[in-house]
């Protein structure tokens, strides 16, 4: 009882510190460094949301989707097209986009959740995502093809023309809400269902569970939040191109999950932080980002199956134990 209270007090403390850091950080970055670092911090948050959304499918649902770029991209495209081509107000476009991404999740999920085996699941989701990529690339009249969508109109309140500060806070609020909802889901009865079917779908079936239904729901939720990440990305960059639907985007988000640790709630966010930083620093030295990525993936899978997050957690627990003794 007392330990529990102490525990929850510690949680509040960590929470307060994190909140404080996230609020002060943008000012420090802007004053102490440059706008670019503020942009980078926002980019990390957006990718963190994408990676955590994706991880609901991979880490919790046991579904190795190689097609999550589709949901990210569909979110970004839906919102951008609505803003550029129609007089749809921004808040409405923002709300519609993740639902369209979720709709795509229903379709892709419907065909993939009953498929057994990591490889086949990855292949079918990849195929669907590449289809979305080709559509965006070829269907010029609708999507502007490889020109992409430039100059997405963003209201002055969150405009990034002069400073990224406002947008940083806008994205922060939305991302914190999304992560809170994801947390609630993971800790809910549904979350336990997901973990159990990831562990042992056969046992789950023989206690009466319709495994596919649970998988599909998790997949659609994952697509929904990936769609929100896509919208935030579009606003951050104010321009998008079919590249955000390409398979390498799906590969990057997988890598973030594995790197950070897919069995830890915040693991993928850590993975996103490392990857975005590496990406922006390494690409300024080398053009071989893809190769660096590939090598990193192999090393992680070989040496850190639990990810950097898992490694850190292990060390922390060891340290706590030693302190306790």
């Amino acid at each position, binding site marked *: 009882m007392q330990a529990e209270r102490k525990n929850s007090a510690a949680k509040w403390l960590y929470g307060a510190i994190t909140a404080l850091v996230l609020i002060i950080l943008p000012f420090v970055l802007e004053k102490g460094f440059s706008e670019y670092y503020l942009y980078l911090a926002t980019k990390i948050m957006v990718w963190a949301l994408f990676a955590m959304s994706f991880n609901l499918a991979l880490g919790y649902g046991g579904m190795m989707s190689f097609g999550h770029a589709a949901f990210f991209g569909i979110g970004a495209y839906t919102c951008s097209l609505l803003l550029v081509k129609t007089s749809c107000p921004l808040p409405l476009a923002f709300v519609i986009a993740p639902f369209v991404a979720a709709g795509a999740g229903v379709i892709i999920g419907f065909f993939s959740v009953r498929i057994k085996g990591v490889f086949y699941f990855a292949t079918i989701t990849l195929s669907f995502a590449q289809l979305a990529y080709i559509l965006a690339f070829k269907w010029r009249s609708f999507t502007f093809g490889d020109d992409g969508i430039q100059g997405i109109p963003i209201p002055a309140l969150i405009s990034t023309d002069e400073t990224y500060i406002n947008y940083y806070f806008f994205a922060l609020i939305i991302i914190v809400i999304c992560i809170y*909802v994801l947390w609630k889901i993971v800790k*809910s*009865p549904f979350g*336990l269902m997901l*973990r*159990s079917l990831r562990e042992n779908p056969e046992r789950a079936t023989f*206690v*009466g569970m319709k495994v596919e239904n649970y998988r599909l729901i998790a997949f659609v939720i994952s697509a929904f939040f990936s769609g929100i990440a896509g919208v935030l990305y579009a606003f951050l960059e104010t321009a998008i191109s079919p590249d955000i639907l390409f398979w390498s985007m799906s590969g990057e988000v997988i890598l973030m999950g594995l790197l950070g640790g897919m069995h830890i709630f915040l693991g993928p966010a850590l993975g996103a932080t490392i990857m975005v930083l590496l990406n922006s620093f390494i690409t300024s030295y080398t053009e071989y980002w893809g190769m660096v990525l590939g090598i990193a993936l192999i090393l992680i899978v070989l040496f850190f199956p639990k990810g950097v997050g898992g490694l850190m957690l292990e060390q922390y627990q060891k340290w706590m134990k030693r302190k306790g003794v």
Partner: protein
Amino acid sequence: MAILEIKGLRKSFGGVMAVAGMDLKVEDGHIDSIIGPNGAGKSTLFNLISGYYPCDEGRVFFKGQDITDLPPQKIAKMGIGRSFQVTNIFPKLTVFENIQATFLYTRGKGLKLFSDLKKFFTQEAEEILSNVGLIDQAGELAGILAAGDRKRLELGIVLATGPDLLLLDEPTCGMSPKETANTIDLIKEIAEKESLSVLFTEHKMDVVFGIAFHITVMNFGSIIAAGKPDDIRANEKVQQIYFGENRCSSK
């Protein structure tokens, strides 16, 4: 009335006739047993009843309803709970979560997306864990339990589905004689308390004689003998084919 009735059930794998046209009845409220050497077809019979494999021929009736070749989830929902010869649990969930998850599925609460997990079936799960003697290990990961404890956890999972008929495939496989005796007592106690019917397979003859109302002896997919424990004990054919064996395999 028979809770389970099997008529002319047949299943072959390639050239192997695993179940070669079997008839079997389990009366409501009975604890019956199927015995037979390794490879006799006992597990396959369970796999046919519970919907794991499709049947080649024959029908399965549960409470008078034809359930042949229904999907396993449906059969489970109708009230047949099964355990597996190779223990089948959720290894990376805690012992408690194993049972809680089963309650959530069975009672249709698995789609609660935003509710607090702690509010669901805590008491019910604890009750089951006390019944199967695992309450002290409630917080441990299921995968690190000893073999006998894992078997009992699977029994707990099956009980949590609220079945009317238990199909237990070698429920004492891998247990010491003392553990075996305890587990058999436990099964009997629970079956009586919850008025369940039980059909279980076994290797250890002495175990079976102490608990079963009715024993069916299988070999090569067919019934060699069937009857009360005393009849089976006296049956020469059974002694010939059977008494060499005494180990279960957890392949």
